[in-house]
């Protein structure tokens, strides 16, 4: 498609030539690990997919405890392709969170967080946290018995944190227990607060990538470095991967549409074998490892403190890894990264099959 008049219109008003020159001049290092560079673009694509399908669903969803469940049933059963967009939103979320974890572990093991890209790590880590909270808040919007019980467990777990735990629990629930107030609150988080934070942080994240360029692993630094243009080479490859991913998301949405349970009843007993979404399973399984009482202290509180500590150490890793900061190899932190990855995978698998 070539529109010379439109190009001229923009060209007379804005310096599009500079942007074109920047795009054409942008080079990406090419080495055996450059495949991992694409995970960021995939996450971005899935995020856009979530925004689009979420916008469509929000046109018909009613964020009220009395009508939420009914409105979703109507979306699924009465609207043209409503079931498909709801299913696509569900599977898009699963894939997005999955790919964000892959992106995080790739950055961790390739030490992409090292100087001067610390801010990139911090902003990405917070973005993953936001994505997980997106998942939790979106899950409650279904307002069925399983979602209700799972959110009750998740927010209850946050309450086990000493000092600030009860405040976080009350803040998330909007009261003592999970009620219609929680639904209103989670809806506000899901459709306005979290998207706004995501856009701001994502803009910062992408801006930092543009400033510093892509990180090259230390093991590849000594190689004869080959670079390839971002536009059009990498853009075309990105496009191909996005197409395949869209196909996978659409296939999953068609073949495995997520179920809708009975409407949530705060007074009813929770359904048996309640499990959180897969990305919470490693936390859930860790909590199960701890006994109720350890040396007179609450076992759940100790577990939550240890988990929070583990996550905090991962967050401040760029500050701890001094060797990487000064451009040296740091095998200790590679082992630590592999440890985190193995623990996450094993606990998730055990949690899924238990």
């Amino acid at each position: 498609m070539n529109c010379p008049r439109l190009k001229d219109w923009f060209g007379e008003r804005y310096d599009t030539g500079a942007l074109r020159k920047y795009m054409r001049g942008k080079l990406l290092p090419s080495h055996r690990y450059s495949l991992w560079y694409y995970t960021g673009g995939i996450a971005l694509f899935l995020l856009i997919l979530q925004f689009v399908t979420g916008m469509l669903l929000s046109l018909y969803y009613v964020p009220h405890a009395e009508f939420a469940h009914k409105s979703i049933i109507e979306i699924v059963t009465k609207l043209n392709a409503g079931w498909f967009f709801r299913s696509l939103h569900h599977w898009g979320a699963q894939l997005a969170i999955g790919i964000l974890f892959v992106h995080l572990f790739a950055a961790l093991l390739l030490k992409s967080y090292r100087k001067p890209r610390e801010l990139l790590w911090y902003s990405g880590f917070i973005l993953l946290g936001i994505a997980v909270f997106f998942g939790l808040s979106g899950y409650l919007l279904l307002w069925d018995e399983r979602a209700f019980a799972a959110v009750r467990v998740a927010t209850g777990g946050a309450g086990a944190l000493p000092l600030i735990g009860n405040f976080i629990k009350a803040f998330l629930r909007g009261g003592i227990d999970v009620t219609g107030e929680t639904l209103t609150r989670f809806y506000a988080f899901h459709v306005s607060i979290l998207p706004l934070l995501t856009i701001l942080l994502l803009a910062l994240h992408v801006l930092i990538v543009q400033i510093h360029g892509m990180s090259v692993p230390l093991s590849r630094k000594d190689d004869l470095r080959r670079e390839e243009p971002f536009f059009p080479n990498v853009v075309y490859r990105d496009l191909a991967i996005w197409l395949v991913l869209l196909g996978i998301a659409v296939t999953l949405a068609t073949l495995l549409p997520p179920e809708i349970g009975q409407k949530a009843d705060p007074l009813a007993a929770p359904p048996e074998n309640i499990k959180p979404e897969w990305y919470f399973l490693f936390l859930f399984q860790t909590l199960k490892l701890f006994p109720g009482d350890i040396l007179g202290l609450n076992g759940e509180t100790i577990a939550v403190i240890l988990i929070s500590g583990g996550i905090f150490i991962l967050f401040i890793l760029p500050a701890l890894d001094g060797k990487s900061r000064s451009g040296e190899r740091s095998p200790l932190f590679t082992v630590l990264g592999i440890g985190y990855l193995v623990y996450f995978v094993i606990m998730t698998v055990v949690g899924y099959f238990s």
Partner: protein
Amino acid sequence: MKFLISLIFLNILHTSLLWGAEAKPAVEVFPATPIYQYAIYGNLVIFWIGILGLLVIIRMKLREIERVQRMGLDKEKS
């Protein structure tokens, strides 16, 4: 013929998925009418054919770009 075989295969796949389910979901989250199901599976097959076609075009385009770059013609142009 291939199209029909694909439709039958997808229908068997869907039936087997339902067979494995422990209980019927409380709400029908997928159209129950057979004609709609065939239309959906048919559309899914066409969608994948479209994706594969686009992938082939992108691959050809990329190879052409790389060939031009190897010859250094892109630098001459700018």
